């Protein structure tokens, strides 16, 4: 076995480009492992952990490119290194096709796009706050996609922005839709009169898609990042967004999405809603519906319910009709579960949820609480417990594959399915597993070929269980619209063909999973 490494000084590439290169290198003949990263200390720690750290990497700086390959022979390692160079060059070539010189600084960017009013920032977390501050100083609203931004910097940025009437979405804001434009991981949805403020990224995607798929549309969808509604930030941007939507003449219905905000923030939201003058729907994932109702908003337990309530209000339907429809569906899911439950082998009784969306992992647990008193998660919702080893499920387990332990030095599971595909087989091999719950998120930035990347793993998992005399139920939902680049209907059809019990929402998928396991192991 041979390990080869090169250090190129001052060659910067973004992490997504590098991860794509590393993935292609890993697929080269005779290559056991490969990495292409910028020479930061944290990346070097990752290289060290995977045995790819060369001595010459020690002196690297953040601006230096490191490529490392572990291969079976010297010749194959050299071939892979040459391939890496080709791949990076091919990427650069494409760049050169653009018109004019690419701005290297904010000043130059503003010169080339006069009147720019928004910055989307997705550089490494330790640089993101400085870039955001520079943009705010120039009067730009900012969306910070990056995570790992220190809390105190977030507070500083948001106070600075709020004082100047500027939006600071994020850090860790995965998605937003402003004036119909998709920012970062956004779906292509209809425009309309429902305004969203969300402290949950995939939550925003799910409600925006559900609203659009129900025939209504989105005026604005603002993300804040999950920490905004916690005590330290105090809901600065959540409240600012809410107030802006209440004042916006094109927004008729406001939809709020969050995990339960800190009580201080809840109180502030309550004050802001007094005399709102337009209907407000809120889903505070896991909070008591009474809390929301006391604020004067329509309470919703799930993202789907919130979206359908908002869509109903927008289209002039009665909330009762919307909720009635959901209750009827629940009865039908119970019947489906009853039918399916007969098909499992003895000993099969657990549900395993494997999620790319953190909000979906939380929502699944909120729903699952109705069906089981014990479950585990690497991002537990009370009363469920912490999953000690994120890589190994125990009992009913809900795993957020977008959590740090899975994404260090790897692409997000919304883009790269390889971690989850392996996990699907691992769960399928467990004789106690009856149900697998999955989410698929479409839209800009997500995996461009979800069906062909996921379906084979599902087929293999089902076949593996079948060979051992078991039946594996795979429950899944696709978050997206038919306008998305991946096309929701097409992806759903392909997954159905692979034997997936496809559900219209994550909430509905969670109900079905719960109804099935409730009937097992008795």
């Amino acid at each position, binding site marked *: 076995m041979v390990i080869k490494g090169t250090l190129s*000084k*001052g060659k*910067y590439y*973004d992490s*997504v480009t590098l991860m794509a290169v590393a993935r292609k290198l890993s697929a080269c003949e005779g290559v056991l492992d490969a990495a292409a990263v*910028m020479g930061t200390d944290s990346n070097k720690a990752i290289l060290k952990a995977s045995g790819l750290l060369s001595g010459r990497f020690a002196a690297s*700086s*953040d*601006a230096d490119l490191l490529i490392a390959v572990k291969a079976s022979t010297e010749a194959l390692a050299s071939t892979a290194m040459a391939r890496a160079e080709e791949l990076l060059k091919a990427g650069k070539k494409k760049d050169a096709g653009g018109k004019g*010189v*690419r*701005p*290297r*600084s*904010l*000043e*130059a*960017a*503003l010169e*080339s*796009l006069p*009147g*720019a*009013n*928004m*910055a*989307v*920032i*997705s*550089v*490494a977390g330790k*640089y993101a706050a*400085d*870039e955001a501050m520079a*943009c705010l100083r120039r009067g*730009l*609203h900012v969306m910070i*996609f*990056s995570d790992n931004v220190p809390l105190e910097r977030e507070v500083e940025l948001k106070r600075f922005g709020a004082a100047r*009437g*500027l*939006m600071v979405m994020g850090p860790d804001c995965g998605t937003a839709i*402003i*004036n*119909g*434009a*998709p*920012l*970062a991981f*956004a779906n*292509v949805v209809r425009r309309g009169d429902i305004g969203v403020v969300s402290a949950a990224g995939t939550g925003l995607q799910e409600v925006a898609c559900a609203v659009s798929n129900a025939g209504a549309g989105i*005026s*604005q969808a603002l993300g804040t990042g999950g920490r905004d509604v916690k005590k330290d930030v105090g809901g600065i941007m959540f409240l*600012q967004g809410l107030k*802006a939507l209440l*004042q*916006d003449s*094109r927004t008729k219905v406001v939809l709020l999405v969050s995990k339960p905000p800190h009580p201080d923030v809840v109180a502030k939201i309550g004050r802001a809603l007094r005399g709102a003058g337009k209907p407000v729907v809120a889903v505070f994932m896991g909070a008591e519906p009474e809390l929301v109702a006391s604020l004067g908003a329509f309470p919703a337990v799930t993202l789907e319910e919130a979206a359908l309530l908002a869509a109903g209000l927008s289209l002039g339907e009665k909330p009762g009709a919307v909720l009635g429809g959901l209750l009827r569906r629940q009865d039908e899911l119970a019947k489906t579960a009853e039918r399916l439950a007969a098909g499992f082998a003895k000993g099969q009784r657990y549900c395993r949820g494997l999620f790319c969306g953190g909000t979906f992992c939380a929502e699944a647990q909120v729903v699952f609480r109705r069906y089981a008193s014990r479950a585990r998660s690497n991002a537990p919702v009370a009363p469920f417990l912490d999953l000690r080893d994120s890589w190994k499920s125990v009992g009913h387990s809900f795993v957020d594959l977008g959590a740090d332990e899975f994404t260090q030095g790897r692409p997000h599971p919304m883009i790269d399915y390889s971690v989850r595909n392996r996990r699907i087989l691992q769960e399928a091999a467990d004789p106690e597993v009856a149900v697998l719950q999955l989410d698929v998120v479409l839209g*800009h*930035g997500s995996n461009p070929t979800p069906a062909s990347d996921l379906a084979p793993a599902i087929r293999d998992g089902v076949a593996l269980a079948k060979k051992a005399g078991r039946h594996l139920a795979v429950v899944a939902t696709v978050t997206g619209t038919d306008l998305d680049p991946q096309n929701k209907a097409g992806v759903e059809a392909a997954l159905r063909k692979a034997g997936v019990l496809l559900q219209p929402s994550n909430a509905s998928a969670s109900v079905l999973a719960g109804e099935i396991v409730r009937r097992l192991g008795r």
Partner: protein
Amino acid sequence: MKTIFQSELKVVNIGLESFQQALAASGCQAVQLDWRPPLALSEKDRRTLALHRGAIDKANKKAVDIVLNGKPFLVGLEKAVDVLPGMRKNSVFHAGPPIGWERMCGPMRGAVIGALLYEGLARTPEEAEGLASSGAVAFSPCHEHGAVGPMAGVISPSMPVYVVKNEEHGNHAYCTLNEGLGKVLRYGAYGPEVIERLRWMAEVLYPALARAVAKVGRVDLKNIIAQALNMGDEVHNRNRAATSLFYRALAPAIVRTCPQPERAAQVLEFINSNDHSFLNLSMPASKACLDAARGVKDSSLVVAMARNGTDFGVRLAGTGDRWFTGPAPVPDALFFPGFTKEDANPDIGDSAITETNGLGGFAIAASPAIVQFVGGTSKDALDYTLQMYEISAAENNVYRIPSLDFRGTPTGIDAVKVVEKGILPFIDTGVAHKKPGIGQVGAGVVSAPAEPFERAVAALARSLDRATRRPGRQRRPEGRPGRRPLGRGR
């Protein structure tokens, strides 16, 4: 905040390119910022710089105005030992930041050997090496004596030098005479033909040029450079037009003042056959303008970038005589037949003084003839120059680029901008073989390394911080250890 809902969304995307592509596909105007991580700087230094940004900008304006207003004239030729401040009989000056024999690269050693043979201080190369390593030779950077030298940049006492005067500020700069291409001292060659040519230059070329310059009085170098930029030179890697203009300025005087017509013809042929003749004038012209800006307090303006083939050194207007160094990079180059990057020595020479003065790589958009060095298209050259505006303190008031509608060249590197933006100065350069005695193997371009700029800016930040923490007290940088008085060797 609600106002953005009423306006057209226009996005600056900093980071993942796919976000910009998605926006563009949806019909939203979005520009991709070609972001790089800023260079390494501590949080504390970063804050200090932010705090003093106003003072730094003011100081830089003052410094760069001095550079822009410089008036370099060739006023004569002299023997080095007669005019270079601090030059002694055993002095050998060299390119780049300070370096001793033990750390010198191959071509630098070759040039030192050649100089010792030329001076008659050694009879054989072996003897010269023994002498050089014995400690008997006083090595010192040209830059510390008002001089500059291309490539190895070696100046020994009896070599003739051009004397350039900045008539605006009264300071002088010096440079040797260009030897031409092929096996030459500046690339580390020291064979008999090299020494013979140096002797001919001292005995024939030098007196002829000295008489001619005396005859015409003085030669306006700024004027020649400005014209040459309009004729396809950037006066670092291409000096064909400037050499022709220089030839026109002096030819009649050379003929008139030369006692023998044959000698006059030889001198004219020598200048005419060497397109790089003028490089040894564009360099001291730049040096004379930049030296005048040294010592401007709080200024992050770069007043020298120089390489000795081992280290790359930088000096700022506001950090006194200190050099800030880092390893010199190996240039990306087009190599002469039979040579590859394996043969190349790390970057060497004081000629980056032209880039420091808004010429060379900074003005490469003016020089379509040499775009093969930078990717082959004139757009590549334009892009390099456009990028250099982002780290420059000013646009030149005299040096202009035709293809940019006569926009002034980016002039005066602001080291703080270099560090903050992670954009490194772009330098045109020749490439020497790493072994002494072989000579030039190619020509190309190189980006300055990050370390010298990081160190320089950190030092500036610390001096600004010290000044604020001790209000009322005068800073006395001269007394600090590690500094050398201006213009003296060590």
